[in-house]
């Protein structure tokens, strides 16, 4: 079966490249992984198109029997339905293009086979996740992508900051994973199975049931869904568990594009959609999903407006866009959530790879303050980034029915939130609209700082190293004589292909994703009424996103092209607010004080007082002291005098005799 090949080709390639490593060399390792991914991609699109045309129906391919233990029985199996097919094309396409892109981006890295092996391993785990037929297999993929993410964030393991970021990502994800695991346990406890179809079939009947949890009685489905949603929050970097995502930018840029933008971080959205019948059984859980999604959407967008690191801007943008997806799911528009996931994968991967291309051209400088005027030097990258920006800001004209990918999906989400009629939905609509304004502002800010204006390159230490000049030596020539080079073909080709996706993905697929219940074919909960109501919202609502997009663009133009002294004045005027946002709402500091420091203190207590003070002192160390002091005594007794030797002998003899007499 094609699906078996799609899932296991990347694994095979990862094993060959990973174990072969230096033995087989760079080019074979890169060839085998990239070829495997392109093959998987080529096999995935027919499956997707089959569901799109309605000619395919869902099926399950058994792989291996996994576990039989009393009531707990599950197998390795690959489930293919519309939802999986959507994820298949997203994962394999982006992954294949990222593999190709990495040929250029990682060209000078000494550890290329390891990098490509990790990438392929990630793809395998992600495919296991999206094809899971039971919760345990989904959890396997879930942990597998977490592992690959950890390995890839820390890929440059000689950089302390990369290691710290990798550990942070792992630990924060464990918090989410605990929720996910408890959700799985609870689900098995209640439903007696971990098979996803069986659970989803039984879920509506459980509405209103209660469960004892943490000493109280709560609504069963609410508890289960919230636990599962905690898992989704961790993986998808939602407010509270988002802190790892910006730091994850320490990894190589292709990794950021593949894992931390297009695929892994959307796993939480995927999970909520996959389990949508469960969430539908709990209005409270849906409200929480909506609120958390909307809050993340706004919160991350505010931070995005203040960051200087080009990758961090896009990282917060990702966080924010994931918020859109969640509140879409929360108001019941799962199709819209998946649609945004789908289009977002293309334009966000495009933006990341474009940023990578800029970084590549700018000698690894990531600070936008030292860019400027790059439009003429790297035109192809500029056009790619422009396409991505037009897509993410949602450029399109409603009444003509044309627009970039983000236009279709984001508008659908905002309309659905408005149309849902609930208080949470309305809140989400307004927050989402404001976030769209911020999105437009920070996206254009990125574009203007990078590609327009005068070059500010010589301020960058990276550039200074490259041209061997200080800013004083360079004088009026703010380029410092540096010549940015357009990236090689291996990097430009993925940009082009993703650019096509960013332009047309919304236009081509919006009808299927949003308006056809038959396309989803029961793989997610399809709320036909909501989808219908979505089209009936007031015209102003339909244009809301476009209006704020133009406002954001105008402000960005004003700030960064027209009058470049304005940002400084505004941030000075806003003072505390600006610092609050610039410092990421002080989340890291808060967590440091509330969680990290106390657990370090606890750990130090166990280490010093428990391990060293008690176990070591009376265990190994105590024994060692006993032995050394015993040794000193024994050496002292060995005086070298005959009479003392004879005395010891006779004492021993007498002792033995005494023992025998008194016993």
């Amino acid at each position, binding site marked *: 079966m094609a699906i078996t090949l799609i899932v296991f080709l990347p694994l095979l390639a990862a094993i060959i490249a990973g174990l072969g490593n230096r033995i087989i060399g760079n080019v074979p390792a890169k060839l085998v992984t990239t070829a495997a991914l392109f093959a998987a991609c080529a096999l995935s699109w027919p499956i997707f198109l089959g569901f799109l045309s309605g000619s395919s129906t869902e099926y399950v391919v058994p792989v291996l029997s996994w576990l039989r233990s009393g009531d707990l029985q599950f197998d390795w199996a690959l489930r293919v339905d519309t939802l999986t097919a959507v994820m298949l094309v997203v994962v394999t396409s982006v992954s294949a293009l990222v593999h190709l892109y990495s040929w250029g981006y990682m060209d000078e890295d000494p550890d290329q086979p390891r990098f490509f092996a990790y990438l392929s391993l990630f793809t395998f785990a992600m495919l296991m996740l999206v094809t899971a037929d039971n919760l345990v297999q989904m959890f396997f993929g879930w942990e597998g992508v977490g592992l690959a993410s950890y390995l890839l964030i820390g890929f440059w393991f000689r950089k302390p900051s990369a290691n710290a970021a990798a550990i942070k990502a792992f630990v924060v994800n464990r918090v989410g994973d605990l929720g996910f695991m408890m959700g799985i346990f609870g689900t098995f406890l209640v439903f007696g199975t971990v098979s996803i179809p069986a659970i989803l079939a039984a879920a509506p009947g459980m509405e209103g049931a209660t469960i004892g949890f943490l000493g109280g009685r709560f609504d069963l489905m609410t508890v289960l869904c919230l636990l599962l949603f905690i898992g989704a929050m961790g993986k998808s970097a939602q407010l509270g568990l988002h802190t790892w995502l910006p730091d994850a930018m320490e990894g190589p840029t292709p990794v950021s594009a593949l894992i931390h933008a297009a695929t892994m971080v959307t796993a939480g959205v995927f999970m909520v959609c996959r389990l949508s019948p469960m969430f539908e059984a709990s209005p409270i859980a849906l409200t929480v999903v909506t609120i958390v999604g909307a809050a993340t959407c706004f919160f991350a967008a505010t931070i995005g407006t203040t960051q200087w690191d080009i990758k961090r801007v896009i990282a917060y943008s990702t966080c924010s866009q994931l918020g859109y997806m969640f509140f879409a799911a929360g108001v019941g528009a799962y199709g819209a959530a998946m649609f945004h996931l789908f289009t977002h994968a293309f334009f966000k991967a495009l933006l990341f790879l474009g940023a990578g291309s800029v970084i590549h051209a700018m000698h690894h400088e990531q600070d936008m303050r030292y860019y400027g005027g790059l439009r003429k030097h790297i035109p192809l990258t500029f056009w790619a980034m422009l396409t991505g920006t037009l897509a993410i800001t949602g450029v399109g004209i409603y009444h003509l029915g044309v627009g970039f990918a983000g236009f279709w999906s984001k508008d659908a989400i905002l309309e659905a939130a408005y149309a849902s009629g609930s208080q949470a939905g309305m809140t989400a609509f307004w927050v989402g609209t404001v976030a769209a304004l911020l999105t437009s502002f920070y996206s254009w800010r990125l574009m203007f700082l990078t590609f327009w204006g005068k070059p500010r390159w010589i301020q960058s230490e990276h550039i200074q190293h490259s041209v061997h000049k200080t800013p004083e030596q360079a004088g009026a020539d703010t380029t410092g004589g540096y010549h940015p080079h357009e990236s090689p073909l291996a990097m430009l080709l993925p940009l082009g292909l993703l650019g096509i996706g960013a332009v047309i993905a919304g236009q081509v697929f919006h009808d299927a994703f949003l308006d056809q219940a038959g396309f989803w074919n029961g793989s997610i909960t399809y709320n036909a009424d909501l989808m219908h109501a979505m089209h009936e919202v007031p015209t102003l609502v339909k244009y809301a996103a476009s209006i704020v997009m133009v406002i954001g663009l105008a402000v960005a133009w004003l700030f960064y092209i027209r009058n470049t002294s304005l940002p400084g004045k505004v941030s000075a005027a806003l003072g505390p607010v600006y610092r609050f946002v610039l410092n990421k709402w002080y989340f890291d500091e808060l967590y440091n004080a509330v969680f990290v420091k106390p657990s370090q203190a606890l750990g130090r207590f166990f280490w010093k007082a428990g391990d060293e003070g008690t176990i070591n002192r009376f265990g190994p160390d105590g024994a060692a002291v006993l032995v050394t002091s015993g040794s000193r005594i*024994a050496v002292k007794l060995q005086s070298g005098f005959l009479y003392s030797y004879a005395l010891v*002998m006779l004492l021993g003899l007498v002792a033995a005799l005494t023992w025998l007499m008194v016993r």
Partner: protein
Amino acid sequence: MNYALWFQLASPEIVLSIAGLLLLLIAAWSSDKSARLVSILTVAAFFGALALSLNFLLADGYAEGADAFYGQYRMDRFAALSKVLIFLSAIACVIVAPKFFARDGMMRAEYPILILFASVGMGLMVSAVDLLTLYIGLELQSLAAYVLASFLRSDDRSAEAGLKYFVLGALASGILLFGMSLLYGFTGTTSFIGIQTAFSDGVSTGALFGVVFVLSGLAFKISAVPFHMWTPDVYEGAPTPVTTFFATAPKVAALALTMRVAIEAFGGQQSVWQQIVIFVAMASILLGGVAAIGQTNIKRLLAYSSINNVGFMLIGLACGTPEGASAMMTYLIIYVAMTLGSFICVLDLNDREGRPVEDIPKLAGLSRTRPGLAAALAVFMFSLAGIPPLFGFWGKFVVFDAAVAAGLIPLAALGIAASVIGAFYYLKVIKVMYFDEPADVIAPSDSTARLALIAVSALFVSPLGYFATLALSPITEDAARALFWAA
């Protein structure tokens, strides 16, 4: 009376005795010029005795053993196996000696002859089934050993070692003899079987004293705590070939003798001596391990190591079962190989002027200047520590296994725990050789014979040694069975 059979049974000792007398004549005739010839002939005589012993060990028809000389002497597979070990050790000690003594011009013909006579004594010890044979064998061995210890008579340390050994040996000998007279007085017999029979209806207090005195006298010979005090001084002071000899052949003879006395003479009253043996075993293991840590002289270190190892072997004796005896013999075989190997490695440690090096810190970085020797010494140290892939582990394993089977679980547990202490100082030697900055003191080897012996021992204690267990297990089991035949 069948003198032909009796002479045949005692043939190893007879061959060695005649050879000894003849070689003494040669030596007296031609003074030290003949040292080389005498050495060669000694080795030849040992090989003859070895072949005769091997015949008793392996040929059919001797499974039950046989008595000779009116119940004074016994040749069985237990004795034969011990003799094989003794003669092999003696051969090695004769081979490595000339190079060592040549430096001082002290290579005399007496050395191989003394070894020869000591070996005759040891042959008698392991074949003794009567207190009188026991004493004659023991004294013959001891007298030769006192002389050997002070062989480098111009060297203060050697003279001191000989004197200390002699005085304390005389004390031990007195204790032993006193015990024997007590036993004779209270049982009316000197034969092991007779004592066993006499003990069958209980042990009188006087005889009990006799048992303790005899065992104490023997404990001196095997340098078990608290009769061990002479060992570090004598091992350090005696010339290294002689130390090699002390650490191997007499240990085998005395342990085998102790085993035979304990089983054949006192076997019926195991409860009398078992607790003492257990205590002595534990004390030897602990003290051998703990005191070795403070040593900087490698010969002293190996002396404590031998005390430590004797403790483990006494666990086999403490069991008082055929499994225990078999385990002790297995341990002895491995112990002899490890000890021979380590001491010959020490013999190979000479500085550029040819002076022996005994300071452990001077071995620093040996792995870089003499990688082969360092590797061999590391193998012996790991093996002595009983670290699994090496053969030394097997010896400890069978001993603990026998102890557990005999119900001595606390003893086995303590022994295992205490062997950790031992591992520390063995590993320290390896650490010095492999991880310290090279001191570059040790000169290249000047003797292929030594290197060959080191290589053979190292191969035997390497994991390859486990192949030998296939052949050794039946032999040690046979030997142990022979011991319990009479009992």
